[in-house]
């Protein structure tokens, strides 16, 4: 199983389109940092109430601002792309039936596919954070971080919180990957999976913005994704993050079971 996972991850990382995707993910923080630098910081205090306005003061805010920017579109899109390849892509290429001749149960195959997606989510977020850290530190320097609560924490503590924020975003993307894996078992068209996952994600972001649907907000996967900002308070506020993880977990379990129910009983013809 470990060797199967290794080869699956190797295949995923070697695909040219996935490498291009990572390049795009890394491009956003660089673009943000360079644009902010070129515009000369644009108003020390005039900025909005978010991490982007903090970028000029401290390079450590570049990765945080980039996470905020990429959370709505680019990161879900990366997961939507690779989850399309997972099952539907194999079926489309006609390699799925050969994969099933390997003496590995379908459940294990599904598990390997999901673990590869989890790894993909981890890589995607790491690339965003790393590119942001490098660009931010080079252009603005790394300084002790001013939290949203107005207290100052050291660079080391700031990096720790950045890492935890990254892991929290990974957890959310893993839940999305479970949805992607399920959709991937439904069709043989990888592009259909990508589109479906993006539609689901966008629909949830939109529903999350409509106040009349506030009763629904707590149940939406994306509702608490931006809660990683709560880590940049002193003391950190965990309420939303814990609830966000519970929602992530619930989505992951339900959609993994759906994927299993579909895939284990499916007639594989291609």
């Amino acid at each position, binding site marked *: 199983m470990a060797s199967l996972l290794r080869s699956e991850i190797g295949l995923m990382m070697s695909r040219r389109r996935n490498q291009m995707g990572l390049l795009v993910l890394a491009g956003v923080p660089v673009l943000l940092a360079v644009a902010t630098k070129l515009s000369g910081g644009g108003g020390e205090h005039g900025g909005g109430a978010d991490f982007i306005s903090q970028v000029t003061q401290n390079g450590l805010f570049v990765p945080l601002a980039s996470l905020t920017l990429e959370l709505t579109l680019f990161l879900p899109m990366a997961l939507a792309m690779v989850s399309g390849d997972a099952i539907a892509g194999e079926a489309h290429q006609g390699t799925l039936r050969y994969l099933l001749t390997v003496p590995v149960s379908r459940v294990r195959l599904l598990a390997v596919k999901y673990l590869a997606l989890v790894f993909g989510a981890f890589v995607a977020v790491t690339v965003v954070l790393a590119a942001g850290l490098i660009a931010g530190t080079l252009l603005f320097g790394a300084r002790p971080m001013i939290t949203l*609560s*107005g*207290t*100052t924490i050291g660079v080391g503590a700031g990096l720790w919180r950045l890492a935890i924020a990254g892991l929290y975003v990974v957890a959310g993307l893993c839940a999305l990957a479970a949805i992607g894996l399920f959709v991937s078992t439904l069709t043989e068209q990888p592009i259909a999976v990508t589109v479906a996952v993006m539609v689901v994600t966008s629909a949830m972001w939109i529903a999350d913005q409509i106040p009349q649907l506030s009763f629904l907000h707590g149940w939406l996967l994306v509702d608490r994704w931006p809660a990683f900002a709560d880590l940049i308070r002193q*003391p950190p506020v965990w309420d939303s993050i814990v609830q966000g993880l519970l929602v992530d977990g619930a989505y992951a379990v*339900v959609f993994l*079971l759906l994927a*299993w129910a579909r895939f284990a009983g499916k007639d594989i013809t291609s």
Partner: protein
Amino acid sequence: MNSLVRRHPAVRWAAPALVVGLIGAGQLVSRSADAAPSLPAKTPQQLLASALSAKVPGLSGTVTTSADLGLPQLPEGTGSGVAGIPLSLLSGSHTMKVWYAGGTGARVALLGRQSETDLIANRTDAWVWNSSDRTVLHAKLPSGGKHANAPVEAPKYSPQQIADWALKQAGPTTAVSSSANTVVAGRSAYDLTLTPKQSGTKVGSIHVAIDAKTSIPLQVKVFAKGAANPALSVGFSQVSFTVPDKKVFEFTPPAGASVKSVAPQRHSTDKTSAAKGRLAMPSISGTGWETVLTTTLPSKASQSVQDALTMLPAVSGSWGKGRLLDTALVSAVVTDDGRVAAGMVPPSALYTALGRG
């Protein structure tokens, strides 16, 4: 199990359905756990007296506020409001973190999506921090340590006497009861209910949840007449009665923040300067819940006030012409010649008051 699944592949779909069902059931169970607990009965007098004498060494928790006054949703960060407290609190729901420790300090942090407003007071200093514009208001507290340590002046009346007096005052206009119990932040609480006896008010009822163990008020809900959901609600969603760490109350303005020092507010004797540009002393008509305040605006109201007024609907009658602010609990009329009438009453009562004055 395996053979069953092999013979009936469709059985597998029961697994995700079961998990969804369990999550739903779990939600329902946690809702019903909030059913009214049974507590030893207390009269309103006893409740009020115990709430007045309640003391806790410290607490920390999460407070949620929600306002549904019929005002349009104000986007986050609209106007900095009074003392750094955003006006956006007047609409929608908001979350705050609160910390309190006896004589050591108190802190309220109003959480925004990627912003925070903090009010911090410790023995020596009071701070207001606003992360969106990175401003700090700072006030040195007068002779901090001594003040905080000074024994509380012995009250002239016992909490019992104050409670009796308050209920006697409220008697003619308000029905006070404590028959129902409730659960707030997972704690059993008494529900002190105030219901106006007068018919001419917009207020339907006010519910104050008082913690059964500590007698601290945990929640206040204000209902408009005939409404099923509260127009205003402020209360703990989570609370713990352990004394928070002293560090929570410490604050040093961060680098790059603009700090404004203000003198601690004193009840100034210099009334002439303070009165300039302020409202004239209001006159009162009506009693209890039907009270209407009428006053006149200073002749030169600021431009922002004028602009705000033009957004309100225009009304007119035998009393004159003006603009009407009509919310779920309060209504107010500003006439074109600068008179103001406001009260927890429907607009018609305001027109009557304006016509008389």
